Each structure stands twice: as C-alpha cells, then as structure tokens.
C-alpha cells in the first residue's frame, strides 16, 4: 500500500508541474504581446486582437508581435520535441535535434546561397530541403543489412557535420562582411521580423510532426528497453527508427527554416522534462513540446527587451548553458541523497 501512496504523490507532483508550466506560458504570451517599443495594456491587446480601436495597435499586434510569438512557440515546441525523440531513439542524452546532420545541411545551404547572393527569398525552403537531404545521407550511411545502427547514425551525423562545416567556413572566409553578417544571423538563430509567411511555410509540417511524435511515445518506451527486448516485444527496429527519425527531422528542419540554427533548446529541454516528470515518453514528449515553447518564447522576449536586439540563439545558449549545469548538479545531489 505504501508504494501506491508514493506513486499517487508522483502523479500529484506531475499535475502541479503541468499547471505551473501552463501558467508560465500564459504569462509569457501576455508579456510578449504587451512589451516592446510601444507598450500595450491588456485592454488594448484584447481590443486590437478583436480588430477594434487604434489602427497602429492593430498592426503592431497582428503583423509584428503575434506572428513572432507564434513562431517562437512553434519553433520552441518543435525543437524540444525533436530533441526528446532523438535522445529517446538513440538512448543518448547528448543527442540534439541537429545531431543527424541537420545543422550541417541547412547551414551549408544557407551560407552557400548568402555568400553567392542567389535566390535569397528562398532561403527558408532551401534550408529545410538541405536539412532533410543531409539526414537522408546520414540514414543511408547508417544502414547495415535490413536495420539501422545507432552508432553509425551518430558517427555519420558527426562526420558529415564536420565535412560540411569545413566547406561552410571556407565559404564564409571568402564572403564579403555584409554577407557574413547575414549568414551569421541564420547560423546563430534569430526570430527577428518573422511573419505570417514563414509560419505558413513551416507551421503545417510542424503541427503534423508534433501530432505524429505523440503517437510514437510507446515505441520510444520500447526502444528504451534495448534492442533485444524491444524486438522480442514485437517492435520493428527499422520501422520505429525510420518513423522517429523522420518525425524528428521534419520538426528540426522546419524550425530551422523559421529561426535558423537556434542552439541548446533541443538539447536541454528533454533533460529538464525527464527531471521534472520522469522517463515515461508518454509524458516526456508533450511536456518537451510545452517546455520548449516556453523556453524559446521567454528567450525571445529577453532577446528583444534590451536596448539592442540580440539574436535569440545567443540568449538560449547564454542562459541555457548555466541552467543545464545547475540542473545536472541538482540531479547528482538528489541521486546521491537517495542512496
């Protein structure tokens, strides 16, 4: 009986955590819509949202703040869930959404197009395509017989990243300063002046992949038991690795096409979620999405709150790294206390 009580307690703690998370997201949504060079009160936000009152306020809300907020929530959720999918599938806490060659592929395409000054409006779509094609190559390299080897998947991603990274640096060194600046903004990740057109391009695939990811949670739990048990329980390793990898890639590539290579969110969010909610992927996946959305929207709020605007990627890394280290030590302490 006593075990039953402890497990109930865990459930209550989960509910509390979820409530806090939702509250924080709501708070950030309100703050993001009101803060900026023109401050809007809650009343003004509601009126502008209903397309009433001051015309400038309506434009600020509908054309500037709302799309940017939605972009940050979508990209954050995509990065968080993509990281959770890959860490679960590869059984490796160091896996990030960019591990399977996504940063390499999209980064190279972006730098190539910017340094040559070609087809600039097509960058989001090309970055998306570059990411997906590179992941295809990584998957092809990881195929052995009828299955996909986790080690080869990771090593293939690392090798391609290094190769493409070198080409990327070479191109950057020869590009003009202005173009280097533009390329850097993409490589660091920024949500500056993202509008409805980017959301229309990346929104549908992200939403589709988010739903798909939630359906894969039991397969991730099975993969966590190791290959042999997982097969014994009727899970096809090939199918689940392809489905999970494809979903994670779609999420990460779509988020890159909106905000560029925003670091750290996809790496730390799943860790924080496992710390708060345990290891059951039926909880880890949705909460990674929520916490990712919260993290990125908060970071973007901070990024545009100062006197000069920073790319949001700098904020996520600047704040993410210390939080990650604190989290690691906290967990270490808890584990040693338990023993």
């Amino acid at each position: 009986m006593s075990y039953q009580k402890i497990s109930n307690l865990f459930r209550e703690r989960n509910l509390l955590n979820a409530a806090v998370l939702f509250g924080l997201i709501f708070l950030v949504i309100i703050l993001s819509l009101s803060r900026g060079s023109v401050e809007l009160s809650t009343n003004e936000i509601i009126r502008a949202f209903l397309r009433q009152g001051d015309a400038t306020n309506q434009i600020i809300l509908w054309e500037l703040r709302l799309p940017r907020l939605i972009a940050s929530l979508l990209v954050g959720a995509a990065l968080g869930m993509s990281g959770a999918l890959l860490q679960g599938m590869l059984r490796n806490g160091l896996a990030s959404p960019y591990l399977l060659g996504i940063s390499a592929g999209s980064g190279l395409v972006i730098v190539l197009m910017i340094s040559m000054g070609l087809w600039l409006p097509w960058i989001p779509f090309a970055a998306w395509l570059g990411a997906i094609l590179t992941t295809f190559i990584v998957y092809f390299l990881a195929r052995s017989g009828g299955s996909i080897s986790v080690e080869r998947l990771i090593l293939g991603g690392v090798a391609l990243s290094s190769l493409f990274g070198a080409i990327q640096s070479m191109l950057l060194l020869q590009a003009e300063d202005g173009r280097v600046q533009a390329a850097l903004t993409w490589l660091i990740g920024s949500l500056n002046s993202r509008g409805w057109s980017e959301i229309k391009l990346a929104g549908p695939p992200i939403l589709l992949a988010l739903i798909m990811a939630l359906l894969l949670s039991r397969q991730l739990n099975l993969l966590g038991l190791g290959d042999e048990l997982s097969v014994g329980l009727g899970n096809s390793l090939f199918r689940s690795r392809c489905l999970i990898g494809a979903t994670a890639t779609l999420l990460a590539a779509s988020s890159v096409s909106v905000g560029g290579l925003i670091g750290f969110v996809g790496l730390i969010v799943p860790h924080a979620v496992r710390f708060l909610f345990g290891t059951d992927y039926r909880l880890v996946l949705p909460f990674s999405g929520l916490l990712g959305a919260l993290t990125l929207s908060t970071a973007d709020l901070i990024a545009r709150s100062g006197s000069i605007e920073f790319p949001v990627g700098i904020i996520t890394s600047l704040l993410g790294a210390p939080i990650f280290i604190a989290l690691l030590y906290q967990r270490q302490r808890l584990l040693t206390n338990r023993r």
Partner: protein
Amino acid sequence: MTLTTKNFSTGYQNKDVIKSINLTLENVEWLGIIGANGSGKSTFLKGISRILKPSSGAAFLNGQNIHLSSTQSIAKEMSVLPQLQTIDLQMSVYELVCLGRSPHKRWWETDLHEKDLLKVDQSLALTDMTNLKDKPVRALSGGQRQRAFLSLALAQDSKTLLLDEPTTFLDVHYQLQFLDLLKELNKDQKLGIITVIHDVNLAARYCDRIAVLKDGSLISLDSPRKVLTPELMKEAFQVETYQIETPIGLQICTIRPC
C-alpha cells in the same frame, strides 16, 4: 505449440557460428540448451528469437517462418528474455509490465484497455510482484528484477518463452526460486520454455530435454539421463564426470578437465 528449425545457420558478419541445426520442440516442454563457452548456445537463441537473421535454413513457430513474418505477429506467440542485468530503468515495475502488451497494440496506440490491464495484473500476480509494482526497476534486487522481466514476458500472453541464461547473476536461493517459478508456469500455464543454461545440474533437474551444442553444431538432443553421460560430457565440455543419483534426481559430479 511447435518450434522447428531446419538446417538453421546463423552468426555475425558473414561468419557462421551456428551450423545447420535441426531441432523440434513439441507440446509443452522445457528444453535446455547447454554447451561450452563459445559453443554458440546464446547465438542460437538469438537466431530463433529473430535478433540475428539466418544465413541459411529457417525457423518456424506454429508453421510461421519466424524471420519472414512480421515481428509483431511472432511476438504474440513467443516471448524473449535476453540477458538483462545491465539495464538501468527508472520506470516502475508496473510501467514495465504494461509494455508487455505491446504486441497486441497497433503502433500508434499509446494506451491500454481494460483487458490489457487485467492481463498485466495477472502477470504481476503470477510472478509474485504485485506488492512491488510501484517500485522503480532500478531499485530492485537481482531476483526481483528477474521476476519483473519475467512478468513483462508473461504479459505478452504468448505460449513460448525463450530465456538466455536467466539464473547466471542470481545467488543459489534466487536461482532455485526463479526456476521453480518457471516450472510452475510450464505445468500450470502450459508455457513452452527454451533456456540457455550454464549449470548442467540445474539443467538435469528442471529440463525435460537437453540440447548439447559443440562448435555451433547440435551433438545431442534427448532426456537429461541420456544426454548427460560421461562420454557426451567429455565431448562437449572436455571434462571428466560421473552421474550420481540423489533425492532430487540425477546429478552430475565433475572430476577434472581433460
């Protein structure tokens, strides 16, 4: 329940470890697989549990080709317990055993129905894990952990169970407790069992038939009394032995390597 292998060969990287094994498991029996280190007994088990593919020949479970049928349809009829002592799981025993219902779910289904949960409760009860069900798996002792994974396999609701050295990391008490539990399932639940087993005396005591492997080939398949003879033991293990009758049946006394 029948499990048959026909000229079954398998191994790693194009090198056959198992060479053309023919074997049939019929009715509800307990088959033990013994052999010296490197004789290929674990490899054979991995082969028939479809973790390794055959390089030639085939294995059939109730007429279905194990390697060509969908892994899910095989999982409804056969459970596999690999050597697991290294897995460090934070999930609770209950969550683990719930995963045993996976073969009966479509790939996108994440939740269990009433009758799945009933089966989970039965499996926990059969392995005497009910009062430990909310403990994290990582906090269990070796014996409890082995029972938790057995419970997972039982929740699959299959009629055949494959185990790779289930008692290796248990002390004497838990070895006997675990094997007694398997015997009970074998008799009461009509569960066919194949185990790779190191200890010939445990094999003699629990198995209905014993298969002896040497260098990847099957050199004998018969009742313990007929298999564990001094001649065969010498051939399979390079060790001198004699048989002794004890109150618990036939046992093997080892004398010296040869």
